[in-house]
């Protein structure tokens, strides 16, 4: 079907208007039928052509009458609460559209702001024609972005020492990380135990630090602090007691 932009005003050309009327009336009936089926609701539509011809009715004369009766039996309040006319409906549509338009404008503004940032990164001379207001806004954007990068970087470095549910997994992880970080090419665990012993001590400290950063760690360390643990049972969900006493058991 050819999509053409139609202005919302009376169609002056008689033939075009009649054709449009037939098409749109048919479409309207289809829509109400779909609404009724999908949502399992009662509905009726009555369309007059603006002359004396009999109306088109959905679902049928008698069914429409039933719907009308059901409607008429409602208290006046119920009926008038959601009754609309053309003006009120148009006003409602206008309000809705204004919201969409504003949102879209805002989004576009954000995009354009980011565009300027990208252009400035590529070549600072792109800032030639830019006024003081935009420039200060740009500085703000740069600072916002830098903050976001900082947060992201923090998140990344936290990821490198993942809190694990099994002691061995944890040790393995931190251990591997430390070796990778120091560019240790030896993959053989046995031979590198000694050299690793020194590294391990540093790794231990770092690991302890990282551990302390995890919120669950502090709760485990201070079971009295409302963590729901009682008495002797440390209730450590993440590290078992034995491992905790000596987090790196292979340094005997």
């Amino acid at each position, binding site marked *: 079907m050819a999509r053409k932009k139609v202005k919302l005003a*009376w169609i002056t050309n008689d033939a075009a208007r009649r054709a449009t009327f037939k098409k749109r009336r048919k479409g309207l009936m289809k829509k109400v039928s779909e609404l009724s089926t999908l949502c399992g609701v009662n509905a009726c539509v009555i369309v*007059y052509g603006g002359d004396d011809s009999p109306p088109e009715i959905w679902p049928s004369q008698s069914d429409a009458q039933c719907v009308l009766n059901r409607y008429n039996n409602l208290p006046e309040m119920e009926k008038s609460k959601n009754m609309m006319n053309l003006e009120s409906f148009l006003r409602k549509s206008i309000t809705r559209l204004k919201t969409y*338009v504003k949102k879209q404008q805002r989004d576009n503004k954000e995009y354009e702001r980011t565009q300027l940032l990208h252009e400035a990164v590529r070549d600072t001379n792109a800032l030639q024609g830019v006024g003081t207001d935009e420039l200060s806004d740009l500085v703000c954007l740069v600072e916002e972005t830098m903050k976001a990068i900082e947060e992201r970087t923090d998140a990344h470095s936290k990821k490198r020492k993942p809190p694990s549910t099994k002691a061995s997994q944890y040790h393995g992880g931190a251990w591997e990380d430390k070796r990778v970080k120091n560019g240790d090419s030896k993959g053989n665990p046995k031979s590198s135990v000694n050299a690793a012993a020194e590294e391990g001590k540093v790794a231990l400290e770092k690991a302890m630090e990282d551990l302390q950063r995890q919120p669950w760690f502090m709760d485990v360390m201070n079971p009295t602090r409302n963590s729901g643990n009682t008495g002797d049972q440390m209730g450590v969900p993440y590290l078992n007691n034995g491992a905790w006493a000596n987090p790196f058991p292979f340094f005997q």
Partner: protein
Amino acid sequence: MAGKPRSKGRQRVEMKPIEENNARKQVTFSKRKHGLFKKASELCVLCGAQVVIIVFSPANKAYSIGIPDFNMLVDRFLSGAPAPPSLGFAPQIPTVRELAKQLTELMNELEVQEKRAKQLAEISEESEEKYWWEKPIEKLELSELMHLQGLYEELRRKVAERADKLLISEMALAQASMPNIVPLPGLEANPIVRNDNPAPQVFSFRFGEN
């Protein structure tokens, strides 16, 4: 700025009752009811039709619309009588015409904004492919992030510099039109006398080179 996730667009919906999902049913009802009323209003404005619609919601609330007049049309329907001349012709009512015009303008505006949005999205997609640092930061590796941080540090400095220069030259311009004010230090002006007489002074400034 992360790009918006592309939604799937219009999907074919099966024409059978929505059973499992009450929320979806209510949402569908709301949207389609609005769409139905919209089509009806267009039919009336474009073609001068006269329409009555009654819909009950899944929660049994009644929604209705009558154009140009609900009660008159219902009476006409029930009595089977011909169109009363007093019913009025919706498209010609001044408020309707005004509102319809507003609506049309808004729709055009929306179309413009949406086109622009599409354009911007395409531009950013292209440049993201060319320049890795323009990707949203969520997609960047740690090393890339740190590099980028350095870039932005540099940029901030440069932009602040330029903003300062610009500010100074703007202020100098402003001062040139206000002869009674002593110029700020930093602007090389010919020495002037702080004047009590209103005679205009001639200054010469050297603006910061761009």
